[in-house]
């Protein structure tokens, strides 16, 4: 099956061509300072480096698995940077770039894929929920949270620096789940301040997006009575502009928007996956020409917003980040087995207390050479 080419789609919102030319769009635009443009580029580079380093650590047996975001950096950084501090994001398991924008330490992401924790960041403090693995379930949590925002009157006051919005991430595959469609029902009926951000990276493991929908996914929203837009997800500026506007629309009380970020999963689904079994390398080659980092770099050069020394400085930062991650990962302590018992409930139940005590005694026995 052939994948539609974004450039050919008149409904695709683009502010930056793959060659780094700046386009203008009647409804969406951004007007950023040079500093901000550079900063976006820096994010893209750092986020990719986190991803590359984590992939390498997995290959070396330090992580059980890793879900790479390779190719989706612009979709994530563009939308992540569009969030205002008070906004709340609900990720899948691949939103490392959004996590970065929410100041979640990348080591916490690694801790999850290493099997040391289930994430271990503070959702409230970072305004970034824990990763969710059961496909689509977080979209309902996000919708409920957004309903709570409305209940709290934190919407439509006119103050965009105070009013809140919620963003729910999910993939093209997830669009088929009942939960996601129920979230659309709820969000529209309660006019919840939420943005549904679908990264259509063309694949759900080995399943092409065409197996999930026979029409472009952004159109799904129409069926539920709220707007859907398709943005070039490899274009960080367009993603930023479209998401910012959708979030502000939500926070001002205009309800939900569905954004389909048209992008591409350039790597395997996870490090356990082998995409050569189900897709042609020519597809990947075609998408490489639309690489989100390259186009932003080209733009910076063309606009003379940055020069080689800036690029080099960012690379230096990325190297430092990578070695911090590597070191942190190698040094990461294993959790105490007692974590199994201690937070199942707010207070340990008698049954768990007995099990925890027996466990401790049993292992103490081992320590004293009492084993078989």
């Amino acid at each position, binding site marked *: 099956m052939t994948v539609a080419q974004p450039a050919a789609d008149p409904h695709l919102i683009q502010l930056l061509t793959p060659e780094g030319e700046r386009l203008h769009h009647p409804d969406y635009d951004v007007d950023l300072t040079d500093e901000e443009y550079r900063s976006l580029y820096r994010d893209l580079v750092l986020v990719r480096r986190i991803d590359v380093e984590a992939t390498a650590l997995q290959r070396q047996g330090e992580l059980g698995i890793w879900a790479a975001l390779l190719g989706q950096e612009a979709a994530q950084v563009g939308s992540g940077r569009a969030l205002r501090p008070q906004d709340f994001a609900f990720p899948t398991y691949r939103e490392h770039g959004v996590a970065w924008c929410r100041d979640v330490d990348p080591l916490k992401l690694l801790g999850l894929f290493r099997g040391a924790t289930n994430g271990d960041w503070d959702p409230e403090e970072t305004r970034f929920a824990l990763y969710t693995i059961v496909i689509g379930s977080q979209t309902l949590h996000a919708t409920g*949270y957004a309903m709570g925002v409305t209940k709290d009157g934190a919407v439509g006051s006119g103050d965009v620096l105070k009013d809140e919005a919620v963003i729910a991430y999910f993939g093209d595959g997830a669009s088929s789940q009942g*939960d996601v469609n129920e979230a659309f029902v709820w969000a529209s009926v309660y006019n919840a301040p939420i943005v549904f951000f679908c990264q259509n990276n063309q694949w759900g493991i080995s399943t092409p997006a065409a197996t999930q929908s026979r029409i472009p996914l952004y159109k799904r929203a129409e069926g539920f009575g709220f707007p859907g837009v398709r943005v070039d997800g490899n274009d960080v500026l367009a993603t930023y502009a479209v998401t910012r506007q959708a979030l502000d629309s939500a926070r001002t009380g205009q309800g939900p928007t569905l954004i389909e970020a048209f992008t591409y999963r350039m790597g395997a689904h996870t490090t356990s996956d082998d995409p050569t079994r189900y897709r042609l390398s020519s597809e990947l080659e075609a998408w490489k020409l639309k690489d989100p980092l390259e186009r932003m770099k080209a733009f910076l050069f063309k606009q003379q917003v940055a020069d080689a020394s800036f690029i080099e400085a960012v690379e230096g930062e990325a190297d430092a980040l990578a070695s911090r991650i590597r070191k942190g990962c190698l040094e990461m302590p294993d959790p105490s087995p007692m974590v199994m018992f201690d937070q199942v409930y707010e207070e340990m139940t008698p049954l768990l207390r007995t099990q925890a005590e027996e466990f401790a005694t049993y292992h103490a026995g081992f320590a004293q050479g009492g084993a078989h």
Partner: protein
Amino acid sequence: MVQLTMAKALNEGLRAAMERDPKVILMGEDIGKLGGVFRVTDGLQKDFGEDRVFDTPLAESGIVGTAIGLAMRGYRPVCEIQFDGFVFPAYDQIVSQLAKMHARSRGRVKMPIVIRIPFGGGIGAVEHHSESPEAYFAHTAGLKVMACSNPIDAHFMIQQAIASNDPVIFLEPKRRYWEKADVDPTAMPDPLEQARVVRSGTDVTLIAYGPMVKTCLDAAAAAEEDGRSLEVVDLRSLSPLDFQTVFESVRRTRRAVVVHEASSFVGLGAEISARLSEELYYEMEAPVLRVTGYDAPYPPSRVEEEFLPDLDRVLHIVDKSLEY
């Protein structure tokens, strides 16, 4: 002290909880103007407004999933599932999301959510309206599972469940909704997770919860006439299960019979039997026996009385227990 039906006692309990804490909200299908199909939320939307008591779209996964988000936002949602048989579309949200959230977030994210479910049979209903799904929830770590058996407990347990920061599956024996009792709202309730000896006896302990407590009490009353003294334990909390109270009772009577409407195979009765033999192996004089619904789908209502444990079947098994 007022005489209340269980439905009304729950209603008053919900009202008290809502008055106490403005974060308590009620959500579910037809709970607003209609007051729920059993009228348990009757009048609450009128008094607390549509913001705190609201009808949802018809989708149970949506109900529980959005409740989880509302809880993350600081609310304390009480969800009504209209009938036992309709909780399963929400099963993933309950078992994989709600139950695990506290543990996976290392206690950072609390889930003070109550899922109210009218459960059990005996009301002459059509398919999917008479299920006893408690084992599915009790087997799930991270959930608490409660079943009230009388108006007084209903009144207090619902408030305690709402006050709990853990997610609670709150099972209401629908065929007992209209039974009455004198409720003193100022009384001091027992702790939520504590079982209770509701009738003392010396020969056999009957262990039950929800709708079967009354059946057991009736059986014990009938047995008394035949000169047998049955103790009845109302578990109240199915998970965590208050084994202390159960053990104490069975230590005295040395015989136990568990009674529930749910099928026997891998049901609550099995767990109670297993634990009793693990703990009181040398103290019991008979195996723990079970009186349960059969291991079949709930039948058409014209034969439900044959499916459900009743006084006679309980006494029949009590006899068997005494034969050991």
